[in-house]
């Protein structure tokens, strides 16, 4: 779409040709997706130049900018078949800040903007869910007031104008200014303002919302992995609702949307040359991508994906090795109990894993005694009903820590994670403190405590094909003289 008659109010159609500094991070990412022909809810941006002009003009939104907004909004109406502030199919929009680099203290986002009495009724009729419409409206009012700082006016255009101004003002919030000062970021850059059509995953039985990882972020397999919540909206899926379904469900219910999703996922992964974490919504059978970013993954997945992406020709050997940290390999190769020994091992207790690792030692239930025996060189497992501050010094010297009460956010869990000490919490009252003097083996990755000393094996560098590949790469890059474990070779490579 062309024909927007303003150089600084740009419809994001994939052809603006503008850099990140002008569009801001959020709009730039939408623009990238549009350029790949990935379906993204239509949006436009007020560029960072508008912000500069706003401050040059004494914090007044320039009239020529504001008068270009209705035409940009009409583009959103045209693409969605909805109308802003009125009609049976009302258009709601989100308004977001977006500087070239994200920074705290900037106005985050106002969702569902354009909400009025009439719009709320139309939403209720359209979704057949009056409670949802009420809830959306209430959330909008609260969010608007909190973020913009005044009660939401009835006029949707005034809502839009105030939200835009709030974004521009937030560029000079105390926190944003101090963040820039601390990091030496210029105050001149300014924030862009991105306005994007909202889409609805809760509209009907052919709607829903989900997340897709282009590859499995836990096991590291090359298969896509994700969840899908029919008739879900927005945060429902990200917040981990338990009634989410596997993506196969989407494939069987709406094969078209599923195929579109897989096509878009492949494009995004190839373009970014990294595994993506994608949020999407299906509205009445039509797929919309809301966000994509490089996926956070387990150490094992990071290692395996690096090898896969190189094999597919997306990244070079050198880039693949750059993506693997020594710690990732160490975790993958960390010792674990020999599966063959598990058949005969006796389980003493189970609890919640708080900090992974495996260790064997003698159980001591008194912190003072534990400290003395650990100082004398004994391998000690400290078992406590719950932890007190005075246990921490002893914990730091033990091989592993067990508690009977408490969850994965307990003080013991926090302290052990900081110190990297294997820890299982919440084993149950009277379970582990009764084992004083016994030799136990703690598998804190699994949350299981075994009697005695089952055989522990180290992950093998010689059997796993991905590890063998990495080993070959490192030998080739460093030359045959380099010696050490793979993690050590990686450290040598990066000059650490």
């Amino acid at each position, binding site marked *: 779409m062309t024909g927007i008659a303003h150089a600084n109010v740009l419809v994001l159609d994939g052809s603006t040709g503008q850099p990140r500094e002008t569009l801001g991070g959020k709009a730039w990412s939408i623009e990238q997706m549009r350029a790949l022909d990935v379906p993204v809810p239509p949006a436009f941006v007020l560029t960072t130049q508008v912000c500069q002009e706003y401050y040059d003009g004494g914090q007044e939104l320039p009239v020529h900018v504001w008068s270009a907004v209705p035409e940009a909004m009409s583009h959103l109406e045209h693409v969605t078949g909805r109308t802003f502030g009125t009609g049976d199919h009302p258009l709601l929009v989100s308004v977001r800040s977006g500087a070239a680099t*994200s*920074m*705290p203290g900037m106005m985050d986002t106002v969702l569902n903007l354009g909400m009025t009495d009439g719009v709320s009724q139309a939403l209720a009729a359209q979704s057949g869910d009056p409670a949802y419409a009420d809830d959306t409206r209430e959330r909008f009012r609260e969010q608007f007031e909190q973020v913009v700082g005044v009660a939401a006016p009835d006029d949707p255009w005034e809502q839009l104008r105030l939200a835009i101004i709030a974004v521009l003002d937030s560029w000079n919030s105390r*926190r944003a200014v101090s*963040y820039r000062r601390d990091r030496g970021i210029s105050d001149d850059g300014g924030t862009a303002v991105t306005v994007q059509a909202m889409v609805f995953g809760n509209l009907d039985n052919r709607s829903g919302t989900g997340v897709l990882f282009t590859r499995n972020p*836990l096991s590291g397999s090359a298969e896509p992995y994700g969840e899908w919540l029919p008739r879900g909206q927005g945060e429902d899926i990200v917040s981990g609702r338990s009634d989410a379904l596997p993506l196969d469900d989407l494939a069987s219910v709406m094969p078209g949307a599923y195929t579109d999703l897989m096509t878009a996922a492949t494009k995004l992964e190839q373009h970014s040359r990294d595994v993506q974490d994608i949020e999407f919504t299906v509205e009445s059978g039509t797929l919309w991508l809301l966000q994509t970013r490089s996926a*956070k*993954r*387990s150490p094992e997945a990071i290692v395996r994906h690096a090898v896969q992406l190189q094999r597919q020709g997306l990244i070079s050997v050198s880039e693949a090795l750059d993506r693997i*940290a020594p*710690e990732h390999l160490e975790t993958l190769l960390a010792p674990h109990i020999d599966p063959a020994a598990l058949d005969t091992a006796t389980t003493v207790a189970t609890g919640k894993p708080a900090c992974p690792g495996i260790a064997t030692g003698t159980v001591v239930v008194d*912190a*003072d005694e534990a*400290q003395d025996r650990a100082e004398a060189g004994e391998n000690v497992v400290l078992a406590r*009903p*719950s932890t*007190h*501050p*005075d*246990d*921490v*010094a*002893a*914990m*730091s010297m033990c091989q592993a820590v067990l508690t009977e*009460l*408490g*969850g*994965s*956010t*307990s*003080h*013991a869990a*926090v*302290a052990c*994670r*900081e*110190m990297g000490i294997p820890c299982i*919490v919440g084993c149950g*009252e009277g379970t582990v403190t009764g084992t004083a003097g016994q030799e136990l083996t703690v598998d804190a990755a699994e949350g299981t405590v075994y009697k005695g000393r089952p055989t522990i094996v180290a992950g093998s560098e010689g059997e796993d094909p991905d590890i063998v590949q990495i080993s070959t790469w490192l030998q080739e890059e460093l030359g045959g003289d380099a010696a050490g474990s793979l993690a050590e070779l990686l450290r040598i490579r990066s000059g650490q």
Partner: protein
Amino acid sequence: MHKEIRVLQAVRLKGRPQAGDIARSTDIPAESLDALLSRLVEDGLLSEARGRYKVTPEGKERLHELLEAERASIDTDALLSAYRDFEPFNSQFKQLMTDWQQIDENTPNDHSDADYDARVVQRLGELHDDFLPLVERIVSVVPRLAAYRDRFSSALAAAVDGDHSWLAHPLKDSYHTVWFEFHEELIGLAGLSRQAEAAAGRAE
């Protein structure tokens, strides 16, 4: 006697602290602290080995008596009301610590994302600002706890300054360490046991 209870309690809570750790916890100047530590060792209430102090069984008994006397002298209603107000802060703080260490349940925070870490530190700053008036209120009920004010603020300042070990490192006087000890004080002053509180899900 006021100083004695502060020193004994600091040594107890720290496990086996050095004189410098005790000075920070009690806010007692080095010279008078050294004299006091020597006296407590002479009296058999503390023992010392390689520069680290430890409360003896007699010291534990003495500390118990002092704490009981203190508990009898304070405004219990005011303390219990403050402890109830501590609860929501404690939940918030625990969530914050979890977010600091874990991106999600299966992903430890490897601290490679500076923006993510900066947001957590910023949230701690906000929590601190909200929490400080409650600390003041508790100090007005139990003046012995006055040193906590500076300990919380110093840990935060060091973390904001860029050394993130001051958020949660257990062997430093990190924000988490100070919180853990402060919570322990409140449980004791309220006449509760940590185990009972843990079973009730309030103090894990």
